[in-house]
């Protein structure tokens, strides 16, 4: 019987059936659940969370060069971190199949940019597969493995938020492990890209591209669906599904193996239709190429490259093409309050951001749940760039001579990901920023994955927990302090001392994510309405459990009992619900 699977589950299933034995990655929405599902196939598949995408990529590349079939998983921006090994693995090539499963986020549901991974395939001169549903996702992993081994090339499997997080039916199959001896072959001209050998590899890469182009044109992953020949649409990924609903009568060329562009297939399809439309999500990569082939087509005039596509948006595109007026977008009938994501009740980061609000400092932030500290009312993050960027940006403000004290804020997993090198830069180059690691003992935003500091591996084994404090000291930081972010007085005192120090310092704010621990931080709090003077101070915490309005009250179902509100209430109106404490 077919199973209902998300795209990410299906990718993991594909890896299992393809005989993958090594899988590595770094968590990132919307890619995270690929490895979380791959681990269900242990011990057949060895899975690990690496400290970052570059390391994961290299680790999986090593496994593949030693002969194992391997996958590496990451979100789109993760491939920027892994771009260095990607570009040269293309030259060296692989032995066992190697597929980089990369998930884009059109619409920026949970990302800081909207980059299109298809550009990387062309950039690195390697093939890319684009599944349009979960069945494709599983099938394409198997196809990608075959192509990878046939041409000794790394391959990218590009998913998107909607492919990864939509469920659809999948026919599952058996696992087949290809017969191959594991062992790194001694053959430096094959594996060492010093110029003398690298230049030969460079030639091979171009020859390989030409062969791959022929393969793509014949591949089952690319399919012409002939219907009415008045309009032909070339499309890929989830956009294919929207096209089928909005233009049910149109002929379609569905590209699953989309780079190298299958030119002969594109020509064949274009030759059989009166008008050609390209529908692609994000960049106009296909459209540009098809135009460069000298084939007349339209795309960007009707289909925007900004944001994610949908059937509703494509209905507007269709109306535009047909010169019909579209119904004006309905303005909402009522004015409703916005409901942006917020730091959860009981979040240990809240105390640090609240405390930082008491100081005239510049705060460079980073990627994680704590990005939400930028929102009102906490409003205590001035810039975010990329993973680990908070630490190095802070150093930049410092060296530019910003007159204020400088603070960099980074999460625990992000610290291990790419924060350590920034810290080294600060000590080596005599900076004096204060770096705060918001250590909640997990990779929280992506759903609580382990990392080098947690003492546990993805395989479920105990391991050495790396101490952030010790790493800080090893990086040359002399002032290392640990704070409990639920203790506001102490947090304020330490931030004051450390930001005033004339040398760099590291503050580790340590408290586990209550969502992960699945238990209250402390006793649930309540507000004594008679004592409450409605000064609204507690509302400055931005805690979703504290509901403002005519009367301020604490939602007993949401409160995690962190006690911050009790500490800042000037009227002593907030106290535990009962003396015994925990509910």
């Amino acid at each position, binding site marked *: 019987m077919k199973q209902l699977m998300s795209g990410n589950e299906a990718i993991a299933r594909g890896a299992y059936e393809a005989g993958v034995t090594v899988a590595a990655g770094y968590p990132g929405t*919307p890619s995270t659940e690929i490895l979380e599902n791959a681990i269900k196939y242990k011990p057949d598949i060895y899975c690990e969370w690496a400290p970052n995408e570059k390391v994961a990529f290299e680790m999986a590349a090593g496994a593949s060069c030693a002969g194992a079939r391997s996958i590496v998983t990451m979100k789109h921006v993760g491939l920027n971190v892994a771009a260095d090994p990607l570009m040269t693995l293309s030259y060296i090539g692989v032995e066992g199949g190697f597929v980089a499963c990369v998930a884009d986020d059109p619409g920026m*549901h949970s990302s800081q940019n909207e980059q299109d991974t298809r550009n990387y395939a062309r950039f690195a001169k390697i093939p890319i597969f684009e599944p349009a*549903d979960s069945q494709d996702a599983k099938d394409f992993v198997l196809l990608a493995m075959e192509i990878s081994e046939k041409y000794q090339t790394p391959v990218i499997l590009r998913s998107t938020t909607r492919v990864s997080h939509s469920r659809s039916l999948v026919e599952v199959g058996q696992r087949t492990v290809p017969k191959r001896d594991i062992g790194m072959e001694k053959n430096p001209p094959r594996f060492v890209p010093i110029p003398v050998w690298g230049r030969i590899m460079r030639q091979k890469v171009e020859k390989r591209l030409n062969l791959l182009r022929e393969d793509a044109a014949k591949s089952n992953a690319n399919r012409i669906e002939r219907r009415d020949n008045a309009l032909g649409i070339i499309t890929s990924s989830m956009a294919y599904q929207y096209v089928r609903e909005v233009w049910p009568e149109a002929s379609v060329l569905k590209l699953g193996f989309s780079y190298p562009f299958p030119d002969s297939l594109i020509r064949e399809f274009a030759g059989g239709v009166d008008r050609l439309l390209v529908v692609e999500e994000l960049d106009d990569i296909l459209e540009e190429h098809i135009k460069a082939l000298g084939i007349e087509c339209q795309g960007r005039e009707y289909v925007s490259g900004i944001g994610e596509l949908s059937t509703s948006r494509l209905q507007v595109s269709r109306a535009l093409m047909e010169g019909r007026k579209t119904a004006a977008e309905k303005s909402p009938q009522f004015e*409703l309050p916005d409901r942006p994501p917020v730091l959860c009740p009981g979040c240990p980061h809240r105390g640090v951001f609240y405390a930082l609000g008491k100081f005239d400092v510049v705060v460079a932030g980073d990627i994680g749940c704590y990005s939400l500290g930028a929102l009102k*009312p906490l409003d205590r993050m001035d810039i975010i760039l990329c993973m680990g960027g908070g630490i190095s940006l802070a150093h930049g403000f410092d060296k530019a001579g910003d007159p204020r004290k400088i603070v960099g804020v980074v999460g625990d997993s992000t610290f291990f990901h790419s924060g350590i090198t920034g810290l080294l830069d600060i000590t080596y180059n005599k900076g004096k920023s204060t770096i705060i690691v918001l250590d909640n003992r997990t990779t929280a935003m992506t759903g609580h994955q382990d990392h080098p500091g947690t003492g546990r591996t993805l395989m479920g084994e105990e391991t050495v927990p790396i101490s952030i404090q010790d790493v800080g000291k090893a990086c040359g930081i002399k002032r290392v302090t640990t704070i409990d972010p639920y203790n506001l007085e102490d947090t304020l005192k330490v931030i004051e001392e450390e930001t005033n120090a004339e040398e760099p310092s590291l503050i580790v704010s340590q408290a586990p994510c209550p969502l992960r621990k699945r238990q209250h931080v402390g006793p649930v709090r309540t507000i004594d309405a008679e004592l409450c003077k409605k000064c609204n101070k507690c509302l400055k915490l931005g805690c979703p459990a504290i509901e403002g309005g005519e009367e301020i009250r604490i939602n007993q179902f949401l409160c995690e009992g962190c006690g911050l509100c009790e500490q800042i209430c000037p009227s002593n109106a907030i106290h535990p619900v009962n003396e015994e404490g925990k509910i």
Partner: protein
Amino acid sequence: MTGKETVSVVLVGVGGQGILLASEIIAKAAMLAGYKVKTNEVHGMAQRGGSVIAQIRYGSEVHSPLVTSGTARVMGALEHIEALRYADYLAPDGMAVVNAQSVIPVTVSMGAAKYPNNVAEMLKETFSKLIYINASKMAVELGNIKASNVVLVGTLSKGLDLPLDVWQEAVASCVPEKHRDLNLKAFETGRNFV
């Protein structure tokens, strides 16, 4: 189900209210009834107490997992102003099952926005077929507020022509065994409300 129509359902609410489980149950029921099914849900940043939507589509053929606005046959809302926020998804004759539950957004608490005080009227004005239900209260009475989502699924199951036994099987197979009885009761309570 009539002919080749694809049935669309949207579930809306606030991150953490249990929308994913509700979505899983509906998808499972449709699958057990022999339909092709696609669903979509939101992960990551959007889950942190923000406004969330899950979408389920089933029929003899389903392409897009996303629901086109104005086409959903049923909407289930675990928070009542979220029903208003996503009202456009519902077909003109679609059925809205709305939980009479307010979750106050931080924007309201800090005084940047107002939470409407006449939600019931706004809902009546917006939806021609409205079932306004206190699923949270019913769940509390059954012993666990977390079962509100399953109560809601029970009620909205009346708007979808899937047989009762597949619903029960879907509920039973989607929840942990120790919560099975509670959730089956929650489903029944919701279904009998109409």
